[in-house]
Structure formats: C-alpha cells, structure tokens
C-alpha cells in the first residue's frame, strides 16, 4: 500500500444516486464531490432523508452510483468486477451497522473471526487476533458468548472488532449508537475514536457528542454537501479538510 499516505483515501467526483419510485425520481445523492484523507474520524450529519446512508453505501461499495466516479484506497469502486468487489469488501472497508448484524448462532469470537476466514487467514491466527481484539475492547470474558447473551453495547463492540478484523483502511459506521442508551453510546464513541488513530472512520450520527469528537464534520442536505455548516459547534471543528490528530 505505498500509495496510501500520498493520495487521499476517498475521492468522489460528481457522484449521483437516484431512485425511481413510481414515475417519480428521487435524487438521494445529487452530484457530490468529496475528498477524505487517510486516518481520523469524519462525522456525516444532516436531516433525515438527506442521503447520509446512501453516501455510506456508495463509498463502501454496497451500492453503485447512478453516475460519477468513486475512488477508495486506490480502487475505482464503481468499476470493480464482482470478484474485485468481494476483495474490496474483505480488505479495504469494514462496516459497523446500527443493528449490529452479528451472526446469531456464532459466538463473539467466531463473529470476529468470520471476515478473516473469508480473507483466507489461517485458523489459529484468526482465533488469536479475534480474542486479542475482543480483549482490547473489554470483552475478554465474553469470547464464547452468543450475541443474544450480550448487551447492546457489547454486541456493538463485537461488531466493531469484526469490522477492524482484517485491518481495513476505512471503517464505515451508520448510526452506530442509534440503538444504544447514552452510556453504551459513549463507550462506542470512544472506541471509534480510538480506532480512528490508525485508519479513517466515517460515521453517520445524529448524536452531537459523537460529532464533537470528529476531526471533520460533513453536512449534507437534500443529497448535496453544504458549504456552510449550520451550527457554531460544528463550525469550530468541521472546516478542516486535512487530517488532524484526534484529541483523547
């Protein structure tokens, strides 16, 4: 990955995504240009229906844009073949979902080991790395627990461990604290901030606390980026486009 430190991690050029519903066209993303540097936390904020999730899905190659170019970590995501897309999802990006999305009949350890298994990591190494990650995230005593035996905050920590298992350069988290109480949410913020020291964490949030921890805040409305952040708090932190060291 010799290109990583030189080039921006994410680059969007005139990206649009529209849906057709009945005869009506909805522009969920309407011509976005965006550059995000390697490392640090980027918060995406905006009203409901403004296109935050759609943007995340496009960047994470879960969905394809209607038009425009998307580059992530040196891959032109919108042009990848299905096989290359699978490789991209394994190596370059990790997802954290609002609903955790753990595999219900696998233990915490097995859930974390899963992406490594897909990526061809040897069994012993998977187990080692998964248990050390879970230990780091304060779940050393929960390795053999099934998701239903864990609290929401614990499940989300397992999910974050799973997302970073293959050491991707980008973590995407869409409202990761949306289903958590504020105390558990706080723990997740700190964890995301911690992992953003080594990689880029892009997080959609309605929680001001989480946005406050971000190095950069991107405002989106009606599928467009907003030049002027609407709040003073966001103004203070959100205008920088260069990566900054997070304060801990």
């Amino acid at each position: 990955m010799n290109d990583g430190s030189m080039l921006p991690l994410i680059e969007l050029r005139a990206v649009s995504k529209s849906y057709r519903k009945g005869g009506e066209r909805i522009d969920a993303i309407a011509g976005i240009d965006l550059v995000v540097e390697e490392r640090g936390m980027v918060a995406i904020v905006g009203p409901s229906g403004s296109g935050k999730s759609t943007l995340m899905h496009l960047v994470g190659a879960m969905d394809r844009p209607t038009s425009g170019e998307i580059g992530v970590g040196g891959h032109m995501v919108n042009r990848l073949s299905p096989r290359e897309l699978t490789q991209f999802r394994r190596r370059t990006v990790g997802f954290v979902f609002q609903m955790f999305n753990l595999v219900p009949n696998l233990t915490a350890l097995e859930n974390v080991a899963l992406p490594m298994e897909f990526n061809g990591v040897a069994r012993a190494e998977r187990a080692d790395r998964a248990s050390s990650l879970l230990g780091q995230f304060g779940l050393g005593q929960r390795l053999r627990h099934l998701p239903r035996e864990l609290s929401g905050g614990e499940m989300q920590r397992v999910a974050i461990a799973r997302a970073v298992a293959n050491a991707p350069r980008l973590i995407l988290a869409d409202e990761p604290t949306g289903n958590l109480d504020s105390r558990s949410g706080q723990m997740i913020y700190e964890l995301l901030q911690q992992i953003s020291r080594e990689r880029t964490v892009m997080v959609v949030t309605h929680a001001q606390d989480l946005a406050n921890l971000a190095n950069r805040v991107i405002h989106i409305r009606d599928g467009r980026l907003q030049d002027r952040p609407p709040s003073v708090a966001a103004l203070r932190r959100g205008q920088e486009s260069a990566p900054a060291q997070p304060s801990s």
Partner: protein
Amino acid sequence: MIRLGLRNVPRNKARLMLIAFLIGIPVFLLLSLRSVDEAVERQTTVLTRDVNTVLQLRAKGSMGHVNMIGQDRLLPADVPEKVARIENVVQVESYLLAMAPITPPNFVMHVGLAPSAVKRLESHGEAGNPRIIAGRDLTPEDAGQDVAIIGKGYAAWAAIEPKDVGKATLAIDPSRTHPAIYGMNRPQRNLRIVGIYASGYVFGDLQLFVPIDTFRSIYGTDRRVSWVFVRVDSVDNVATVAQRLHDTVGGVADILVPKQAAVFTATTSRTVLRLTFLGGLLAIVLMIIVVFFVVLMQVRERAREIGTLKAIGASNGGVVVQFLTEAVALALLGGAFGLVVFRFLGDAVTRHLFALGIGPFLPSHYRPLFASLSVGSEISASVLLIVMSVAVVAAIIGSSYGVWQLIKISPLEAVKHE
C-alpha cells in the same frame, strides 16, 4: 463455509424435526417401493422357475372335459405311468375335469385330483395353490371321500358361507345340461364342503376341487384322465423331456410346453417394476419439493444475514456453498430418519402399500401372492448408498432456485428496515 452451513443445521430444532419428517417420508416411500420391487422379483423368479418346469398333456385335439360337447376325449389310462418313467420327470399329477351349469348361461368347473396335488386354476393356473380363506385344504385322508373345497365365487352362488364350512353340502348333478354341456345319466351326489378358497380371479373362484376317485364315481369315468401335469427337475431339461413325451405319448396327446406362462410372469413383473419406478420418481420429486421450499424459506428468512455476510466479505460462491451444505445435511438427516422408520415399520407398511397401491394394477389372480410376499426391511450397503445419493441429488436440484435467489441478494439487504 461448509462449517458455517453445518452450524446452521441445528439452528432451529422444530424446523429440523419438521424437515427430517418431510424428507423422511419420501425416503421411506422410496425404500418401501424398492423392497416391494425386490420381493416381486424374487417371487417372479420362483414362479418362473416353477411354472416353466411343468408341461401339460391333453388328449389330442380335445379340451378333455368329460361332459363338454365335442371336447370330451380323454387321455388313455396308461399315460401317467408312461410319463413317470421318463428321465428327469419328478412329478406327475392327473386331473379330471367336468363342467357344470350354474345360473345360465354360466358354468363352473369341477376338478378331480389327488388331494395333495397342486390345485391349479383353470386357464390361469400359473400361480398354483390358491389361498384357503375358510376351513381347510384337502388332505390325503380325503381320498375317495365325498368332500370338496370350493372357490369363493362358486360358494357365493351356492349360498355357502364361511361359517357353514364343514357342515354345508353341495349337490352335484351330472344330468344337468347347458349349451356346451351334455347331460350324463348319473345320480346326484352330495359333497361336504370342507374349505373355501380365494384366488382373486373371478373364473378361478368358480371351481370345485374333489378327490379324483370321488370324481370318477360321480361321473362314472374309468381310469382315463383329462390332463396330466408333468414336472421336470429343471428348466434346462424341459426341452428334452418334451421330446421324450412326443416319442412316447405324442400319438395320443397334445403337449403344452410352458412358454406362455413365462411370458405372462415377465409381463407382470414388468408392470410392477414400472409402478415402483414411478413411485420412486414421485418420492424423489417430493423430496425436491420439500428442499425447494425449505431453502427458499431460509433464503427469505435470512436475507439480512446473507446481506451482512456479503457486506463483510463473503463471496457469492461461499454463501452458495454454505446453503448447499445445509441443504445436503438436512436431506441426509431426513434420509436417516426415513431409514430408521423403514427399519421399524417397513415390513408392515410395505405390505399395505403393495396391496393398496400396486395390487389394483396387477392381474387379479396375483393378489393371493401378497400374503406370501416376504418384504425385507434390512438396511444394506446398497440401500444406504441409494438413500445418500438420492438425498444429495434432491438437495442440489431442490436448492437451485433458492441458490439463484441467494446470489441476487445485495449486501444492502443488511441495512434494510433500519
């Protein structure tokens, strides 16, 4: 992914049991039909060997019925002895036949034979001794006695019920006539009915078997006989014996070589084979349908999980392998369940299955065979192999549509309805 697929098998115990049951039933059906198949084939082999070693002699150009107009010429009295001396002949059985009118224009057949001789049915005698359904068969002690066993249909006409057996009598009147039967000036005789038999065949059930000496004294015939059945020690010697018969009694007798019988049994077993084949096919189709719905249901139910797996890096091929593994494992478990049920219930159920499902399609006189059918419920290596391969094939074919749906699931499915 194979491991993940296997882990998914016991995920829902109720589902697992239901599927094992739903797949087990067709497997059971398949195994039952197969064992019917085997039993019939075994039976046919015996039958073919037996029937094909018996030749029949009749007076030249005559049916040999003592009172049938134009057909009453009989075989000379010395024929049985001459025949018995021929090499490779193991048994000689003499029959005497007379027709008797019942409710016009029908008639029944009275047969005189040694009490222990095989009671062959007129024109469909291949199957041999019919089944006694009331009373008893004739025994050597009955020789010369005024006793008889009667076919079910004849008994019904004569109003003899099973409970009357042993007491009921039947009047034989040789003087009665019919368009094809001439009257004989002989007195009426009452025979005590000691048994009722059933052949399942209408005409076969319109017969009366009496000891041959009794027959002679009723109809006033001498030592001549209607038919002689000659049993040869093996199929290989039938042709030689037929030649020797030509040489010794060919001048007075027509010799019927058992070709027809062989053809007939072959046809019958082919019918059975075809039916069991269709049944087997039906069983496999049932399995495929069960797998089809199970896999489709699972793909729908786990769409979110599948989307998640794809989003975190599972390839389409990997997810397909996972689901195929699960389907094959479920089908194999269902197969194992079917095997267990077959082991314990196979024998009983197969009999009924045969009687209800296949019996109606067979020539009716074959039905008495059901009773003697020995159906195996052993689980041999070949049975195991059949079940396993059928399960695997059904699982793969049955999953194909679900697999196609699986491939189409987008990773976005992971975040739907958030």
